[in-house]
């Protein structure tokens, strides 16, 4: 049971998912947990990018505390562009 948890929303490819996180965990761990929770395990976490509400990329090594994430905050997790273009 997490002792320093807050509830946030992670929007995975547009689908909002409520999740409880430990504020001392790195964002990378939160990403992995959310991907597992939503069944998005076909691509590794490095193929996803997570942004804050302003659209800024979030540093995966930082913790929720370091990012000053408050309860009810929203992060946006999307599959990267990957191969494409020319």
């Amino acid at each position: 049971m997490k002792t320093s948890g807050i509830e946030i929303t992670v929007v995975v490819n547009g689908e909002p998912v409520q999740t409880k996180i430990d504020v001392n965990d790195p964002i990378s761990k939160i990403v992995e947990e959310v991907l597992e929770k939503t069944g998005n395990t076909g691509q590794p976490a490095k193929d996803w990018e997570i942004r804050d509400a302003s659209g800024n990329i979030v540093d995966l090594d930082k913790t929720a505390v370091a990012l000053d994430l408050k309860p009810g905050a929203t992060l946006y997790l999307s599959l990267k562009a990957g191969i494409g273009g020319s």
Partner: protein
Amino acid sequence: MSDTQFTDVSVSRKKFNREIREFRRMSDQYLLRGWLLAHVKFPIVRVIFATSKTNPVMILCGVSFDYTNYDAVPPSVRLVHPITGIPYKSSEMPTFLPRFVQKSDANVEPIELEEQRLMQHRGGDDVPFLCLAGVREYHEHPAHSGDSWELHRPLGAGRLVRLIQIISKYGLDTVNGYTVNMIPQLQLNFVPQPE
């Protein structure tokens, strides 16, 4: 609705409605990013991109997503006139969504980057498409025959917000201001002479 619908239309419509519902659920947040849901009529949805970082705010473009036969096939994505919804031809494109990727011989120092355009067209002045896994034209192209849609569908590669996020990253988010070009002109003033 397109007359080429071959998937059970109720399935496509249900999945389409889910995309719209999820966008609308977070629409207040997306508005702050400059993403506006302008037109929704199954199977087409048009999103307008507005430059929230500039003053005054400017509309960069519209993007049309065609979810015909979704998700048996991925959506078709085009940049369009934001008001009329008419797809931009190559010569009219406000941006080709450029990104910079490492050249193939990445082990050579210094690492060189090359520009890669995500909006591609086949030639002439035809209508470009978003060349990306998760987009119909990408998977239909013979050059990508080994990268089938079925590999990407479970990952949500064709989801509306995911595609909007990518277009925004390489298009809208790269706009940070205006440039005004002033071209000086020299003009002779003729004063009529009295008779």
